[in-house]
């Protein structure tokens, strides 16, 4: 953990902690989602669906090459084009070359985390295209030049007034401080864009290998507009986002809308198989599917493999007590929260996100709620092992734990150390020296009192008791 990196992290944390409105919004959002998800999780059908999801996804990953191959073949058979992008740069290049060839000036996008991961928008803007995010939350953060705050609700950190000001500035007139009015404004603006756009870029919640279908799970309708109106449809998807057959979607559709949005089902589940047929009157004429690796194959077959089973529901963010305090931006990564704390270091390298594995109390709430049965807390802990094993890391911690272990393996040494340290500790705590927020325990005592040390160890008391009672 470099000093500069840690300092920047601390600053982001401070900003979040000091923002009262933000604290309220995040806590309310979490409580709201938990109230919707908890009862569903208690149902027998949920547990059965979660089991199935884990099995289907594990099976898919175990044979991923085969399913990618099958998926690509089927997409092509239905008239789509498939591009295999080894990394972000290749993916960006393919899409921007395509846009350039097609002279695409206006591009509409529906929500796709992987396009943020590969930084697609800036590549398209660099060739002179205008890229418009159409998911309402993404539309808002795009206008504000910010990263999404949450996987499912990108603009949850923005107040009504903040959004009103943003939209009013763009509209050139003062809009009402009313969610309905602001939504209508966005609908009006974006409707024009949908009809005028040359290209629509979407993500893909799941690809179906057996049919070459791309499935989108959405509520607003912008996903459907993006993939229906422009003449070219580009799908960008992570290589792991596949299921073998259409029926495999069932447990996922039972769980994803509930875990992600507290709903029984989203307003739209759309399965797109190839571009429009020759005899159809609407739908894109061309469809391109960009399958992105960008570090995922490295995770495959390794100890963190289960992270690829993520269905991007966001449930982990909705229960994480750390996210509750620091919010999405503090993570400084495309994916925030527990999923981000694992995925980002794995995709980008630990050195890019040195704080993330340590920004967790390992409470296990994420593991408990994850509908894909990813052992998130365990992975966070393991990333710590990778982190301290490799890097220099604070020498003091390593030596400290080694000394501790040496003493712990030698009970007599341990007892002797206690006999010296504990009375000293008692003296310090009695005199208030341990309360003053300075010295080696400052990180604790700056905000918390240290317990009044009793001065005697349990083992010493036990021994005394034994001696008194005799053998």
């Amino acid at each position: 953990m470099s000093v500069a990196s840690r300092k920047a992290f601390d600053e982001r944390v401070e900003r979040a902690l000091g923002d009262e409105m933000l604290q309220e919004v995040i806590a309310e959002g979490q409580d709201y989602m938990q109230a919707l998800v908890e009862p569903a999780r208690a149902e027998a059908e949920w547990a059965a669906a979660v089991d199935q999801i884990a099995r289907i996804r594990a099976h898919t990953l175990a044979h991923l090459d085969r399913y990618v191959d099958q998926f690509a073949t089927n997409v092509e058979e239905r008239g789509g084009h498939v591009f295999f992008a080894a990394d972000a740069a290749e993916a960006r290049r393919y899409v921007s070359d395509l846009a350039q060839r097609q002279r695409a000036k206006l591009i509409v996008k529906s929500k796709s985390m992987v396009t943020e991961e590969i930084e697609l928008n800036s590549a398209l803007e660099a060739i002179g295209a205008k890229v418009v995010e159409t998911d309402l939350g993404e539309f808002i953060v795009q206008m504000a030049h910010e990263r999404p705050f949450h996987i499912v609700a990108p603009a949850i950190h923005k107040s009504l007034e903040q959004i009103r000001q943003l939209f009013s500035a763009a509209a050139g007139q003062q809009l009402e401080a009313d969610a309905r009015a602001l939504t209508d404004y966005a609908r009006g603006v974006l409707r024009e864009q949908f009809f005028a756009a040359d290209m629509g870029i979407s993500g893909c919640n799941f690809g179906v290998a057996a049919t070459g279908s791309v499935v989108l799970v959405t509520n607003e309708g912008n996903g459907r507009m993006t993939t229906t109106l422009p003449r070219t449809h580009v799908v960008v998807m992570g290589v792991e986002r596949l299921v073998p057959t259409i029926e495999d979607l069932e447990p996922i559709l039972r769980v994803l809308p509930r875990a992600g949005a507290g709903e029984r089902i989203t307003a739209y589940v759309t399965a797109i198989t190839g571009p429009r047929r020759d005899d159809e009157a609407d739908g894109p004429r061309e469809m391109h599917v960009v399958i992105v690796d960008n570090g995922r194959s490295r995770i495959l077959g390794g100890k963190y493999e289960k992270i690829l089973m993520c269905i991007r529901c966001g449930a982990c963010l909705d229960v994480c007590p750390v996210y509750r305090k620091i919010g999405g931006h503090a993570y400084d990564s495309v994916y925030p929260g527990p999923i981000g704390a694992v995925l980002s270091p794995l995709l980008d390298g630990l050195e890019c996100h040195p704080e993330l594995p340590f920004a967790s109390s390992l409470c296990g709430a994420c593991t408990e709620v994850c509908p894909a049965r990813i052992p998130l807390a365990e992975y966070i802990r393991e990333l710590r092992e990778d982190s301290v094993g490799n890097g220099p890391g604070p020498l003091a911690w390593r030596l400290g734990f080694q000394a501790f272990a040496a003493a712990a393996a030698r009970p007599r040494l341990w007892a002797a150390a206690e006999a010296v340290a504990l009375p000293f500790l008692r003296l310090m705590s009695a005199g208030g020296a341990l309360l003053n927020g300075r010295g080696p325990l400052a990180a604790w005592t700056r905000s918390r009192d240290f317990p009044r040390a009793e001065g005697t160890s349990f083992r010493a008391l036990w021994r005394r008791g034994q001696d008194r009672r005799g053998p």
Partner: protein
Amino acid sequence: MITCLGDALFARVGVATVQVLRNLGVAVDFPAAQTCCGQPAYNAGYRDAARDTARAFLRAFAGSESVVSISGSCAAMVREGFPDLFAGCPEEAAAAELAARTYEFSEFLVDVLGVRELPVSRHARVALHHSCHTRRLLGVVEQPVRLVQMVDGLEYIPLANAEQCCGFGGTFAVKMPRISTAMVDEKVDRILETGADLLVGLDMSCLMNIEGRLRRRGHAVEVRHLAEVLAAGWRA
């Protein structure tokens, strides 16, 4: 299992635990070779140090019929952490065997001893902190509630957002103190909202964190391990 923290800083909790167990007719021994289960090193990512520590722990309890821990998270370390730590090692079988006879205190009383009533009195409004590892890794949720309800005179008030972490998290508390403090602040707020004059818990690490913040914020809520309340209120 007295735990390293219990041994060094909270001997009174160990004493109370022994008392309660003896009152219930259990023959209690303290194998003096025990020191630490290795959880702090394990959670901080220092696997080798954790394993060395845990190995000594295995030896210390090799001869014990049952191991009762005053800390839920330490019991969880033995039950969930040791299988990972010793996977593929010569100690793997011994670790699994130890895990099968290791219990958290309230779990031992309710599930193993079958305690259904207690000759204990204490008059107070009480809130209960479950601690994350006890709840999620051991699945111990009902047991401490039932024990609290067996105490004559205790008025139990459930905490709102009870499943939320208090912010201790081992080295997290000192590595990420600002976040940790924000988390414990919320826990303290929830406790104060209950109007409880007593907070009871199963893990001194969590309780130390919560009490430290309560005091710093100037509140006098009494904080006790469940064993202390049972021992102190035991009617002769």
